[in-house]
């Protein structure tokens, strides 16, 4: 089963072979987890997103028509799910209800270097969270996933033109945010 192409697995699943879907999950789970993690920078949230992506895929795969590659299709679901999760997180943060369930491990008990590293990661997370939706998506897919612009355009259903500008502005905004937080040197 592992040597079958994506399309073959999709066809098998559409014909009732559940194990073909399992194979697709095993094939893509790591990539989907990581793209989610780049957006939310939190393991638990990324895990939730990855699970949601595969649930949505399971429910829609029977109607998958191969107009785009499965890879592009899954990434598109992942990006949209991650963006939705971020919007929901904004609402939750307002009500601060997550405080009851989650205790953030900042590594504050470790050595200074580890504390600083965690603080810097949090800073990056905040900087990325402040980016406009499209810039954030382009940044994650280009910087972390190292995707070609053509692929990013397919996932975001947009044209290639403008993506480089989006990427540049995202990087510059992160740079300004980090510099501002660290103060003038």
């Amino acid at each position: 089963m592992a040597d079958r192409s994506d399309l073959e697995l999709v066809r098998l699943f559409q014909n009732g072979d559940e194990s073909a879907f399992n194979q697709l999950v095993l094939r893509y789970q790591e990539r989907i987890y990581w793209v989610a993690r780049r957006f939310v920078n939190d393991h638990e949230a990324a895990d939730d997103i990855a699970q949601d992506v595969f649930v949505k895929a399971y429910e829609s795969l029977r109607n998958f028509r191969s107009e785009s590659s499965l890879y592009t299709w899954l990434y598109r679901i992942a990006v949209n799910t991650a963006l939705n999760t971020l919007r929901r997180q904004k609402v939750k943060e307002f009500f601060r209800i997550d405080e009851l369930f989650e205790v953030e491990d900042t590594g504050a008990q470790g050595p200074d270097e580890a504390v600083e590293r965690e603080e810097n990661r949090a800073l990056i997370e905040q900087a990325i969270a402040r980016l406009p939706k499209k810039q954030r998506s382009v940044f994650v897919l280009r910087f972390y996933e190292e995707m070609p612009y053509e692929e990013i355009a397919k996932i975001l259903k947009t044209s290639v033109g403008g993506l480089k500008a989006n990427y540049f502005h995202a990087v510059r905004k992160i740079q300004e945010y980090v510099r501002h937080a660290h103060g003038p040197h």
Partner: protein
Amino acid sequence: MHTDHIEYLLPDYVSGKLDEELKEAVELHLRSCVSCRLEADRVREVVLFLDAHRPNAPAPSYFTTVLPRLRRRLQQKESPSLLSRPVVARLALPLAVAALSIVLLLHLPVVPGESGSLLNSMRVAVGDVSADDLTQAVMDESRQHPFVSVLGDHELAAAVPDRIVEQHLFTEDFYSQASEAMGPLFDITPSQAIEGLSDSEIDALLQRLVERTML
């Protein structure tokens, strides 16, 4: 090549993602343009910073758990319980939180004793108040006073403003009764309630929050 275009290529240039032709064009331009060299330095600095702070990978065993949990979830989706139905999930908890908060905010007397008396008191108290007004009142109050973090073991207590707690208007018994009265009715957490909202409802809620806060 126009300077604007060179700028847009800088993140890919400092990351080594440009093909040879574009890389040479960028380098040629940088040799003669001080402002773009400075820009390239700034971009390089942040790219190195981002590279040095990539998130830690999850435990190696994590990826062996994804498929089994997914399968369990798909199985559960095929036989959902009453309380997991979207309409119940969307309406029940927000209204419960609003009702409980209103009772507390209005300092209504609560008579302990008979089973369900707290819930009945709340029903009487909020019977004539619309869901919108309840939500509005809770939101207004929450803007003025930070929510408490932990008030016991029930998440509904999180909706109670600090001021009320600080004034000791209610005893621990009250919270215990509140939890007992409300808990079994709404077997979901606030987080789950928010998850149950549709995208358009989230948009509407965000819009309202943005109008009222600095969110």
